[in-house]
């Protein structure tokens, strides 16, 4: 298991380097000019100086190398500095956003809590709802509950968040007036009343996201339970005289959870990536909206860094899912 993990980790390094190169090259072709917003009265030689100040004057390989150094060497140092109060990174140049001229990672750290709150809560809610639905649907296969569950999850698959989000805004904000349609990220939770306000503004985005995730997870849980319910060991357990509850919840569920746990792990990068569309609909000031804003403003360092962080998370959680699978299921051997 350990050798497998180490082998996968070493394999992940060239993968990530290649991905960062792909992203860099893609952005390299960008026709957008970061100087487009500068007034026309600024003389060309000044413009050229500003361009060089952004680091654009050098050839592409040098800039790629600089970005790699900044991201993999200087940013971790900044993190250590902030955690331990040391000054390893003093004077080093960090990845700077062209929009705000401040370090990209600082902005990411500012935006991350909003995304984690909303999307993370949605993920938890979805897991809590989806697992019982999946278990019961499989146990009573083809019952009306199963049919209804199938239909609801099909709807959850099919209704895109930009429609379901707008729909709940129309129903609950415009017509009923129960919840605010815009998520206020400056709101601070200090006492019970402000907590209730926070809860009210979170309900709609969480609802929209949770519907989607529930649809996928409950289908998966159901399929996994169905695979196990007809196994011989279930018949043995029943023949031993175990209660129906023990058979299903102890024997079948534990085996069915193995693939479901890995699927849940695979979905975690999406939490950090932020639901780009849902954040856009509810104006949640999170990572997804940061990316959209950076793309529209031609802020290449920001786009490059954010996309690469997403890629790192995807690769990392793929690895975690594989390792988890091996740990949970003793039949799987990776050697």
């Amino acid at each position, binding site marked *: 298991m350990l050798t497998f993990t180490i082998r996968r980790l070493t394999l992940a390094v060239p993968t990530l380097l290649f991905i960062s190169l792909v992203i860099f090259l893609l952005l390299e072709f960008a*026709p957008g000019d970061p100087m487009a917003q500068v007034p026309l009265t600024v003389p060309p030689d000044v413009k050229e100086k500003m361009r060089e100040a952004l680091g654009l004057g050098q050839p592409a390989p040098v800039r790629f190398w600089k970005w790699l150094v900044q991201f993999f060497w200087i940013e971790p140092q900044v993190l250590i500095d902030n955690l331990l109060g040391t000054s390893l990174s003093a004077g080093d140049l960090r990845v700077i956003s062209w929009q705000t001229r401040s370090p990209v990672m600082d902005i990411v750290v500012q935006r991350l809590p909003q995304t984690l709150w909303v999307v993370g809560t949605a993920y938890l809610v979805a897991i809590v709802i989806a697992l019982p639905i999946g278990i019961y649907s499989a146990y009573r296969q083809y019952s009306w509950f199963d049919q209804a569950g199938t239909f609801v999850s*099909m709807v959850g*698959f*099919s*209704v895109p968040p*930009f*429609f379901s989000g*707008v*729909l709940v805004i129309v129903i609950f904000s415009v017509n009923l007036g129960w919840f605010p349609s815009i998520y206020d990220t400056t709101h601070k939770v200090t006492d019970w009343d402000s907590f209730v306000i926070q809860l009210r503004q979170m309900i709609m985005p969480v609802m929209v996201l949770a519907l989607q995730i529930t649809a996928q997870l409950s289908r998966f849980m159901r399929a996994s339970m169905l695979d196990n319910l007809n196994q011989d060991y279930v018949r043995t357990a029943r023949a031993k005289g175990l209660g129906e509850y023990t058979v299903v919840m102890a024997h079948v569920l534990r085996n069915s959870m193995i693939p479901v746990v890995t699927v849940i792990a695979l979905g975690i990068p999406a939490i950090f990536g932020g639901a780009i569309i849902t954040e856009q609909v509810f104006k949640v000031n999170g990572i997804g909206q940061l*990316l959209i804003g950076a793309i529209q403003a031609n802020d290449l360092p920001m786009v490059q860094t954010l996309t690469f962080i997403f890629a790192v998370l995807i690769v990392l959680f793929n690895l975690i899912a594989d390792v988890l699978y091996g740990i949970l299921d003793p039949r799987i051997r990776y050697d």
Partner: protein
Amino acid sequence: MTEITAPPQPARPPRSQWLDVWDQFKTHRGALIGGILFILIVVAVYLGPYLWGIDPTGIDIRARNQGPSWAHPFGTDQLGRDMLARMMAGGATSVSVGITAMLLALFLGSFVGILAGYFRRLDGPLMRLTDLFLALPLLPLLLVMMLLFREPLSSAFGLERGIFILIVVSIGITSWMPTARIVRGDVLAIKEREFVLAARSIGATDTRIITRHILPNVLSPVMVSATLGIASAIITESALSFLGLGFPPDFPTWGRLLFDATDYLQQYPERVFWPGLAISLTVLSVNYLGDGLRDALDPRIRKR
């Protein structure tokens, strides 16, 4: 004396495989309804404009923001353009993008899958490539591609055609991976079967074995992933349009109509409803169709 007996006759006339598939497909009521609904939607968006003569981009500023009436069953928008005509024009674009992008992804996926499954030497590199693509954050990359190649392509092919090509190609090259994996798995199994060995022993070339013996046998997983591909391509295109990075504003698609309608959410909420419903219904019908096809094409289920 040995009597020459007639060879044993089958009790029933032979049935083609596709007749069996159709019989199984018919028993899945959701899939049947989904299939009919999808055909209806496709017919409506492609043939509808011939019956409903109003120009989807024709501005009639005096008839703006009208509710449903006989002249405009879905009402008109803020510039007095007929919503029914715009819905049909938008649907034609969305469905065309969905189908074309699906075909491209299917072609790429089957190509990579067959090469990886059939030629042992290509298996490793091609599957690493597939894993690499799966590790890319797709929606952000799609957005970046939209932004970067919009100008050069629309100046090369004209605005609408350029964006169409851009969207189809970007969706196609970011969604072929599941198909490639499924096809590779199937090819790996089929290539060891006796009929492939027989074909090889009579001297069939690799190209012939692939096109005549292997391709027909991987058709069913390809068909299932085709239906699911249409659904996800339509959703992706609408999402891009919704984020303002899809087709230009005066060119209607369902996602764009939904996006434009959110500005008037408070006053005219019903304008959001129609494009959203159209997207959802199309995707739902295609998903049910794929579900039924998967059951119908699986011989293990069909025998029951």
